[in-house]
């Protein structure tokens, strides 16, 4: 009986030790252990101008890490400005760009051009100028465009949209946003309040000998607030109810203020 108990304890200890050893081995190999804080970003009507999402993970020693974050895609109607009458800027062309991520962030531990060749940057989709997006995005022109002008116009529209996104903080290329500490890395993603909800893909690359190797990938879930969802739903799905509700709210608030001020001024 004693021998059986002793045997069980010994077996349990052996299993635990083996598990720990395997975990340690996996960590030393740079196996995917990714921690995202917070993992779910809950939206609210009132929010800070931006939130910081901290992504930590393990990686091999003496390497550089690049973290790429991609949001769901969207569709955008765009205008191209052109001069009319020689002095006034008017919309001269229209197109719709689809299948373009609304947020795209490349965060790295050091200057990316110093660790990856342009070809390797393009292969891994880690270009500081977001070059990969040009191929991914689709475009539909409002009017027929000559075939030889399509490529240049496609590039011009997508570049313009990326510039708008960069100004809004949605497209980011940030050197030094990933801090290395022996076998761990910590990336700080600045998440702007106007970024869309949805599933965000997070890719972590380790850079070794001039090549980018996908270390691990994970997801960040961004939810919009109930108030925002409710208002968006009614504004688009039930616009008549939304319009009447908006008008009634305005009348009620206006009358309330009128009555309160009327009492105060004695009118």
């Amino acid at each position, binding site marked *: 009986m004693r021998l059986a108990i002793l045997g069980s304890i010994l077996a349990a200890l052996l299993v635990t030790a083996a598990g720990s050893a395997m975990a340690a081995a996996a960590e030393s190999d740079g196996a995917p252990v990714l921690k995202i804080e917070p993992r779910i970003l809950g939206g609210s009507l*009132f*929010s*800070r101008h931006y939130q910081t999402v*901290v992504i930590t993970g393990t990686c091999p020693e003496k390497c550089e890490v690049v973290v790429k974050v991609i949001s769901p895609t969207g569709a955008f109607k765009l205008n191209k400005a052109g001069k009319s009458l020689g002095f006034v800027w008017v919309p001269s062309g229209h197109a719709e760009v689809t299948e373009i991520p609304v947020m795209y962030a490349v965060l790295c531990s050091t200057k990316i051009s110093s660790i990856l060749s342009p070809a390797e940057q393009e292969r891994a989709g880690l270009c500081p100028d977001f070059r990969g997006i040009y191929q991914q995005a689709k475009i539909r022109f*409002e009017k027929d465009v000559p075939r030889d002008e399509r490529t240049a116009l496609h590039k011009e529209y997508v570049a313009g949209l990326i510039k708008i996104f960069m100004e809004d903080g949605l497209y980011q290329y940030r050197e030094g946003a990933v801090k290395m500490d022996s076998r761990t890395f910590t990336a700080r993603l600045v998440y702007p309040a*106007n970024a869309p909800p949805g599933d965000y893909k997070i890719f972590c690359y380790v850079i070794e000998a001039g090549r980018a190797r996908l270390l691990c990938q994970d997801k960040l879930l961004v939810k919009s607030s109930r108030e925002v969802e409710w208002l968006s739903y009614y504004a688009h799905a039930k*616009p008549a109810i939304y*319009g009447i509700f908006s008008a009634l709210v*305005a009348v009620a608030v206006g009358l309330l203020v009128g009555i309160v001020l009327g009492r105060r001024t004695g009118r």
Partner: protein
Amino acid sequence: MPGQGDKMDIYLPIAHMSINVFFLIGLGGLVGFLSGLFGVGGGFLLTPLLIFAGIPPMVAAASDSNQIVAAASSGAYTHSRMGNVDFKMGIVLLLGGITGGSVGVQIIKMLAALGEVDFVIKLVYVVILGVIGSFMFIESLNALRGRKDVREYTAPSEPKESGLRKLAMKLPWQVNFDKSRLTTSVIFPFFLGTFVGILAAIMGVGGGFIMVPAMIYILGMPTIVAIGTDLFQIVLTCINVTIQQAIRNHTVDLILVVVLFFGSSVGAQVGARVGKRLRGEQLRILLAIIVLLVMIKMLYDLLVTPGNPISLAGGGGGH
């Protein structure tokens, strides 16, 4: 511990953007202050300022119309209690306003489909603000120089008969408006309402800056009744524009409206108190300068080479 930006933003679900809430309240407060100071609706200042703040022009104009409903309801309630509303005239103006508002919303929808709406809204603002600002500036300058009695402009006891007024009296469908102490054809106020309704939809304004002088100088209504009746028709015309914009263009941002109104109602009270300490002609020349500055900024945006030739059609959204 995740970090956070130090500014408090509010998300505008229809404009699809996040904006500093105190900035928005301040903007509403500033326009409310000017509105209280000068005794104007302020819609013609609020829409351009919202556009400068990055709100898409279509959303700015539509939401401003809804904000005007709130602002004008308060004034209309007070004036109706004081007996300053000519309801018969108000209904004629309103019929025109509803017609014009519906046409205006349809024009916006058509322009949005063509991708030209932002440009047209800005262009209409440049023209209207340019004309009104210049007129006000010249008139106020003359008043300051003593060429003209300013009080005669703001509260004329016996408005002179204009050519249009004489014409209105010759048109068919003459109706007696007891409260306004006049008999005139309903055709003229109907078309006046239609014109202002179109402007309300395109510019997001109440149109008092056109309607009140027209009622005083062309129709010959007493000033206080003109103001009360104008507020009454503004409330209902802008309710129509709000509902139409919501249905046809989905551009009314209720969150934006409530925040702006919160700021503007406080600002209007402060402005009205400060305004009592200033002379009328000084106030008007100041307002004329503000109107002209806003117009110049809008004109500048149309003339100067844009930093980015590509812009979001309708100003935003999409995702």
